[in-house]
């Protein structure tokens, strides 16, 4: 009960390898065009890698090496269901028959397949759409139906490409809860741009950039202490890279010195990174007196509401402060400000190698 994947697709600049224990779910994160959908395509059997090997529960789904194709299980015999980024509901079937398509293909009689389809439609809050023709749906409705259709296929491996992207808040919350229930014990790979999906649905995370895995690890570790700029940005954390200048301090290329706490002491001269919460950053109009450590100056590039706080962006750095503080400081975009963070709030770590540093 496990998944092994190694594949390189030169056309898409994709070159990845990963190993998943059965029954767990993996979130794939990364910028647009980094190869997330292509990765799913290889697993689903829609994209043939130039080289690669896919094994699912001991079955070899794909084995291509320099000598040629040694094994190739076609898409329909892989027991891998894919919810693609585009819903692509069959336009000639109604909603119910779209969802019943998988069960019917698996050989279920029409009645049972439809009953099953009705159940899955209910799960994604789309039970009332059952009799609609597939083309008469709104964007979010179509996405929900497509999700139900993928789930109804009851595959061994479930691939979900941004399953909640166009759902409204209430439904997204409800469907996320449903998925949490449904995915338990099911081998799943989930592409997402949403933090909540990672937090609520994923056991582990990989981050792709330009077709390579740049970070991998358990979801909670990556959320707490991301090592890639992309993950840090996604999880709303500040990430600063530089060179260690002591066991618990680094210097950035800009010359900023950041002190913090390290699990194991840094080796001087080695690359290192520092991560801290935007809420731990304070904003000052003048350089704070007292200890000048961990203070950097810059221009405010944006002010964004964030729940009941305001996020102040200064270049790549973020500071979350209260609206009252914004008013007190009279902050507007373009102000020159000083950001400070207490060393006790900063976590230091050796920087990851090029290939990411899987923590397992």
């Amino acid at each position, binding site marked *: 009960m496990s998944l092994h994947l190694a594949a390189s697709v030169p056309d898409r600049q994709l070159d990845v390898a990963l190993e998943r224990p059965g029954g767990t779910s993996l979130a794939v994160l990364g910028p647009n065009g980094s190869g997330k959908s292509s990765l799913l395509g290889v697993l*689903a*059997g*829609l994209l043939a890698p130039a080289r690669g090997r896919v094994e699912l529960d001991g079955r070899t789904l794909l084995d291509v090496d320099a000598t040629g194709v040694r094994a190739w299980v*076609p*898409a*329909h*015999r892989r*027991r*891998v*269901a*894919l919810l*693609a980024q585009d819903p*692509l509901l*069959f*336009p*000639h*079937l109604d909603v119910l028959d779209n969802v019943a*398509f*998988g069960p*019917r*293909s*698996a050989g279920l009689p029409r009645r049972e397949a439809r009953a099953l389809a009705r159940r899955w439609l209910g799960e994604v809050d789309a039970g009332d759409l059952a009799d609609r*023709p597939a*083309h008469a749906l709104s964007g979010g409705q179509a996405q929900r139906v497509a999700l139900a*259709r*993928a789930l109804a*296929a009851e*595959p061994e491996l479930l691939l979900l490409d941004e399953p909640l992207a166009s759902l409204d808040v209430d439904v997204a919350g409800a469907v996320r809860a449903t998925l949490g229930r449904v995915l338990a014990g099911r081998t799943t790979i989930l592409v997402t741009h949403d933090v909540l999906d990672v937090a609520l649905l994923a056991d582990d995370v990989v981050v792709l950039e330009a077709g390579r895995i740049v970070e991998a690890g358990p979801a909670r570790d990556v959320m707490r202490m991301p090592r890639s700029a992309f993950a840090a940005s996604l999880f709303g954390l500040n990430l600063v890279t530089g060179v260690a200048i002591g066991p618990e301090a680094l210097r950035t290329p800009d010359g900023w010195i950041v002190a913090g706490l390290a699990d194991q002491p840094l080796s001087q001269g080695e690359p290192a990174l520092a991560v801290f919460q935007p809420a731990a950053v304070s904003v000052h109009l003048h350089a704070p007196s007292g200890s000048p450590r961990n203070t950097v100056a810059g221009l405010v590039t944006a002010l964004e509401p964030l729940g009941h706080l305001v996020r102040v962006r200064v270049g790549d750095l973020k500071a979350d402060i209260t609206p009252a503080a914004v008013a007190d400081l009279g902050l507007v975009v373009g102000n020159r400000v000083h950001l400070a963070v207490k060393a006790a709030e900063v976590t230091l770590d050796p920087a990851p190698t090029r290939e990411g540093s899987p923590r397992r």
Partner: protein
Amino acid sequence: MPDSALRSPRLRTRQAPVGLPHWAALPAGLAVAFLGLPLLAMLSRVSWGQFPALVTSESSRAALALSLRTSVAATVLCLLLGVPLALVLARARFPGQHLVRALALLPLVLPPVVAGIALLYTFGRRGLLGETLQVAGIQVAFSTTAVVLAQTFVAMPFLVISLEGALRTVGQRYDEVAATLGASPTTVLRRVTLPLLAPALASGTVLAFARALGEFGATITFAGSLQGVTRTLPLEIYLQRETDADAAVALSLVLVVVSAVVIAVSRRTRSPW
């Protein structure tokens, strides 16, 4: 009311169509006139008094019945052989594909009479397969089977080519989705590819049926012309023309009516989306 002119672009559907260019009406109208005038001219020449007798004469009825039977059989054969061929041409990649595609067009360019000769060379008594067939006890010569074969030969390309064009136009994204849901290629074909192609399949079938119904040259060359066995309506019309061109024209109207019925039926069975 002065503003009644403003109301003219009636929006009949909720989904407002993207307009066609206005000028398109001109060539389209010309096309309709060009296709319609000969029909009018034909209608104006028919002596309607004679018409019922002519159309219900024994030879005419036998010819019409034969034509319908053979055209339907030929269309079915075209579907059975032509749909897979179109699929293979549009979706598979194999060496010699260009040759096969060219082959599928062959009967289109061959003058039907030559097609008939080629069929004689193949299925005739002294043809390539003639002896084999004779040994197997199959007698193609001068039989209704020969008519069906001739019609299938000339009609198949219409189905294949129009279907292949449509297959390329639709692409295979839905087929892929179906495969990831566990549908075998056969299921994909039956439940996704063909239903999606319904309009093109319908027009291809109509084309093939119409071509089979109107087939003359290959039939007379390959199958001969015997009332009730091989003399289809076009052959009957041709013979009528020898003595009375106007009678032949009148009889052709029967073909026109049959085709109109076929179109009406093919519209009705078209999927509703």
